[in-house]
């Protein structure tokens, strides 16, 4: 791609209205061209200004306490604290913990770069999603390091996760929920060479009594179980599934509702599904299970962050 072609591609790129081929060529070009990186920064600033150009509407005041409490798990003052308190609060472990996980940061940065180069990342938005996932694992690494007793065992697990996520044949698959789990969103990082699936999901409603969710990879026309799980109270799960039977690239991934202990092949309704995992993340599609279409319950708003 020439400089002129890159400049032509940028306006469409920053509003995610380009095509995958042009995007790959543009990213390859700007990676080696400082002048075009600067030009791209101007366009990104422009896109961000569009986001801030909408009429400014203040959210309802109640949302503040609801949001802060849901996230931090502790009540936040309805009134702001006096300024003296603000200065009195000093995050004690901040400086101490900084630097110790620098190698992990570097590994994660390299991971994001590797994923980009492999062409798996299709848009800025998806890049942000990959970074979000990396950030979650990073946070867990940092937590583990703070907790000396747990660190040794946890680190082995995290090293395994990083090995999966840095595998040459890594596939990123997005899964979308179908009713009654319509709000559920999941990402799976699949490596055939590592025989493993790293899976994260959010906004998945709790399963009914005596039922669990089961993750499946469909390969060679056969469903292969990747284990069972129950999401936490906030509807989230993060797991690494060791799947020795995963010897070829899966054609689809799915999550079904099954009896406790799991089953050898799926029997329950499929609640999350992506077809044709490929390098094109946006091919993941919603799969609507007919049996579920008559379910009157809507869980769209039951799982709050």
């Amino acid at each position, binding site marked *: 791609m020439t400089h002129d072609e890159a400049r032509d591609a940028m306006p469409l790129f920053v509003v995610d209205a380009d095509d995958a081929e042009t995007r790959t060529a543009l990213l390859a070009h700007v990676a080696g061209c400082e002048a075009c990186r600067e030009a791209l920064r101007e366009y990104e600033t*422009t896109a961000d200004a569009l986001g801030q150009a909408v009429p400014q509407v203040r959210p309802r005041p109640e949302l503040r306490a609801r949001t802060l409490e849901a996230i931090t798990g502790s009540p936040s003052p309805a009134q702001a604290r006096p300024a003296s308190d603000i200065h009195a609060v000093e995050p004690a472990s901040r400086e101490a913990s900084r630097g110790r996980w620098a190698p992990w940061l570097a590994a994660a940065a390299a991971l994001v770069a590797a994923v980009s180069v492999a062409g798996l990342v299709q848009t800025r938005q998806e890049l942000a999603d990959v970074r979000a996932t990396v950030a979650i694992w990073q946070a867990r690494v940092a937590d583990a390091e703070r907790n000396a007793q747990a660190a040794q065992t946890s680190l082995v697990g995290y090293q395994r996760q990083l090995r999966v996520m840095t595998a040459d044949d890594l596939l990123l698959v997005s899964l979308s929920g179908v009713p009654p789990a319509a709000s559920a969103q999941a990402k799976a990082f699949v490596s055939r060479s590592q025989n493993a699936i790293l899976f994260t999901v959010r906004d998945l409603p709790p399963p009914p009594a005596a039922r669990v969710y089961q993750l499946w990879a469909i390969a060679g026309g056969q469903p292969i179980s990747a284990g069972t799980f129950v999401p936490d109270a906030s509807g989230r799960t993060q797991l690494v599934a060791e799947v020795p039977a995963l010897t070829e690239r899966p054609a689809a991934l799915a999550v079904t509702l099954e009896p406790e202990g799991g089953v050898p092949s799926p029997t329950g309704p499929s609640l999350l599904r992506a077809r044709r995992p490929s390098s094109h993340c946006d091919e993941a599609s919603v799969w609507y299970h007919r049996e579920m279409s008559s379910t009157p319950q809507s869980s769209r708003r039951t799982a709050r962050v």
Partner: protein
Amino acid sequence: MSLERATGAIDDRDAIRRVAAQDGLGLEALYDRYSTVVYSLALRVLRDAADAEDVTQEVFAQIWTQAGRFDPSRGVVAAWVTVLARSRALDRLRRRGPASRTVGGESALPHIPDPSPSVEWIAATAEQADAAREALSALPDEQRTAVELAYYEGLTQAEIATRTSAPLGTVKTRIRTGVQRLRDAVTRRAGPRNEA
């Protein structure tokens, strides 16, 4: 206004550091400064107050988990928050499916128009936002529509072509020309900027 003044003592960089250390006060500061930006963009995309509230919660939850790897020197916080807000709002819009995309219904909940965005936010981005708003309204209708469908509704170039009954090449030209004009306006207004 008292909320903004009190947590306003914490600047963006300090707030991000505090959030990275899981200090709730940092999150309060970011919420007081940026919740209107996040909520307003989500409301523009989703046109539903309840959904926009959910998105606001998701965005601040994401900030809580990701602040540790955000480097404030490499991008202003407002830009980061804006990208998160758009991404989460478009996720939710896509989950609704194509049928609801054209719905522009009024929200069931009352909106409180914000006559006084926070001082910090004005200082950081309002100039550029004003420039973008003015430039957007000055664009020819077909350019403005194409840019809005891409940015606020997350449509692909092919979907925009279908929606506006225009050839693909024409759609690309409209978006390109429109965004170029916006960039001209935004960079002119921003003027020479001090790099932090």
